[in-house]
């Protein structure tokens, strides 16, 4: 890779050990993907929950945080992805103390590096939305696909150590979705029936995502029948597509800056209600008793919390069923002010902030609470939690709530 003066000085260790480590990592990855040089980034988003980090990852962060301030402080504004525990509410869901303690250590180290502890995967909705052409180092598959596809910004998937490296150098190797050549559309899809809610959008994202062969495919989507789109719809659509496919970008006609015009004559795979319903049916419950309902993955927006509070107004979740909600600290505070949190918690729900279900040691939670059957409106979450020993069912938010009140999985 071609290095400029600053990058050469970083590699020589003149700017301290953390930046030397960081740029060496980035050169290895850049050469793996044939990057010619680096590009500076305007914002970094880092996944560093304690479940992913483990004790060795936390120790690594602490070692970085122990460097002198001028050597360790990030060079680009850096925000954090959800954490592994909501310290104030961990006991309510029986998260053991060792997780909370590990979480405190990780958070202290991230803060010492100069990161902003936003603890959110919906930073594109709630912190600083990306803009067209902006180079980024985002660290959640859902945030990357949203930035590329909806905003026309440019980011690859930057896993935790890579996002840390980007934060320390203020740049990333220029390959993949930083380059025009990588952002061109491939296979075309046409949504022929209007999606009936957010979980339908997630199902559509999943159906498209699982057909993609690799990270390098960019599906083109015509959604003319879906009407005007909003951020929550595209959030669920993209998060599911990225989860099922390792897909970092789609083009949606009329939204994505690079997308072609919709073309009714172009060959396209049609997707409608029958496909979505078959997808729901693939998560048929094995039993009736419902252990836990989860609204998360991605964290909920203020509008989703408003919808959920309306469904739970004056109701009561069954005694043997837990109902968990995850959102960002900022959105939680807004929901507190507007009364949504109180409505949800009066009904028996737990509103968690700064976490996401699958990032908070889901296997430990299952064991501590005896949870097995799980219901959610997140297509991304059903894809992830089967590997953690859960038996997940995907359903629209209203049906998840009906089931939570009944304590049984309502079909």
């Amino acid at each position, binding site marked *: 890779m071609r290095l400029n003066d600053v990058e050469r000085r970083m590699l020589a260790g003149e700017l301290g050990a953390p930046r030397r480590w960081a740029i060496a990592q980035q050169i290895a990855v850049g050469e793996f993907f044939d990057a010619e040089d680096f590009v500076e980034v305007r914002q970094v988003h880092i996944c560093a929950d304690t479940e992913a980090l483990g004790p060795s990852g936390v120790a690594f962060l602490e070692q970085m945080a122990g460097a002198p301030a001028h050597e360790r402080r990030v060079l680009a504004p850096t925000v954090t992805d959800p954490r592994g525990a909501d310290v104030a509410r961990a006991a309510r869901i029986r998260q053991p103390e060792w997780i909370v303690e590990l979480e405190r250590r990780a958070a202290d180290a991230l803060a010492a590096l100069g990161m902003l502890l936003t603890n959110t995967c919906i930073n594109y909705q709630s912190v600083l939305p990306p803009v067209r052409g902006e180079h980024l180092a985002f660290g959640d598959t859902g945030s990357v696909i949203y930035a590329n596809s909806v905003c026309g910004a440019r980011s690859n*998937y930057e896993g935790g150590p*890579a996002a840390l490296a980007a934060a320390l150098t203020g740049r990333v190797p220029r390959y993949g979705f930083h380059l025009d050549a990588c952002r061109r559309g491939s296979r075309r899809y046409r949504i022929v029936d209007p999606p009936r809610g957010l979980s339908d959008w997630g199902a559509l994202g999943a159906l498209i995502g699982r057909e993609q062969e690799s990270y390098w495919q960019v599906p083109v989507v015509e959604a003319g029948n879906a009407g005007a789109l909003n951020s929550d719809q595209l959030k669920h659509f993209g998060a599911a597509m990225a989860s099922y496919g390792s897909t970092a970008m789609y083009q949606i006609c009329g939204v994505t800056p690079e997308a072609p015009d919709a073309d009714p004559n172009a060959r396209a795979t049609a997707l409608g209600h029958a496909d979505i319903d078959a997808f729901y049916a693939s998560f048929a419950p094995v039993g009736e008793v419902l252990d836990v309902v989860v609204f998360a993955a991605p964290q909920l927006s203020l509008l989703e919390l408003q919808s959920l509070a309306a469904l739970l107004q004056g109701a009561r979740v069954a005694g043997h069923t837990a109902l968990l909600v995850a959102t960002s600290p900022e959105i939680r505070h807004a929901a507190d002010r507007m009364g949504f949190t109180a409505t949800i918690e009066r009904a028996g729900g737990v509103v968690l902030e700064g976490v996401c279900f699958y990032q908070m040691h889901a296997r430990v939670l299952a064991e501590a609470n005896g949870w097995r059957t799980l219901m959610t409106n997140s297509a991304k979450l059903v894809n992830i939690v089967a*590997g953690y020993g859960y038996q997940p069912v995907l359903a629209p938010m209203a049906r998840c709530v009906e089931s939570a009140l009944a304590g049984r999985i309502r079909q």
Partner: protein
Amino acid sequence: MTEIRGHKGVGEHVRGPALVAADNFSARYDLDRERGIFSRPAHELYGQSYVGKILVLNAAKGGVATSWMLAEMAARGMAPLALLLNYANPIMAQAAAFSGIALIDRFDGDITQTIATGDQVEVDPTQGLVRVCSSRDRESGD
């Protein structure tokens, strides 16, 4: 000995037994990292141990957590020896750079059809080269 050429990789030069499936890979979605086995019921390698194996799979799938997780698994001695994929994504490359676990992708043909489970395989990331030293068939006298 068969030599298979891929793109220049990252990580350390290693040798070990292959574990192969025409399926995809994500550390967070697919693995019970405490027990060292594939735990996602729909995965072709469900229930099998990957510890100390050269994992040969199709493509990297969802999730950014794999890059921390592979290093954490390596720190506990519960990691695969190497990853050979038809298509890595950035997360896998970053994971390999961070953990030292060998990774090569973009082979001449479908790597999951070229190597069989049980083959002894040598992985040389700096050359982007994989050598199948002994196949299970030959060892069993077939």
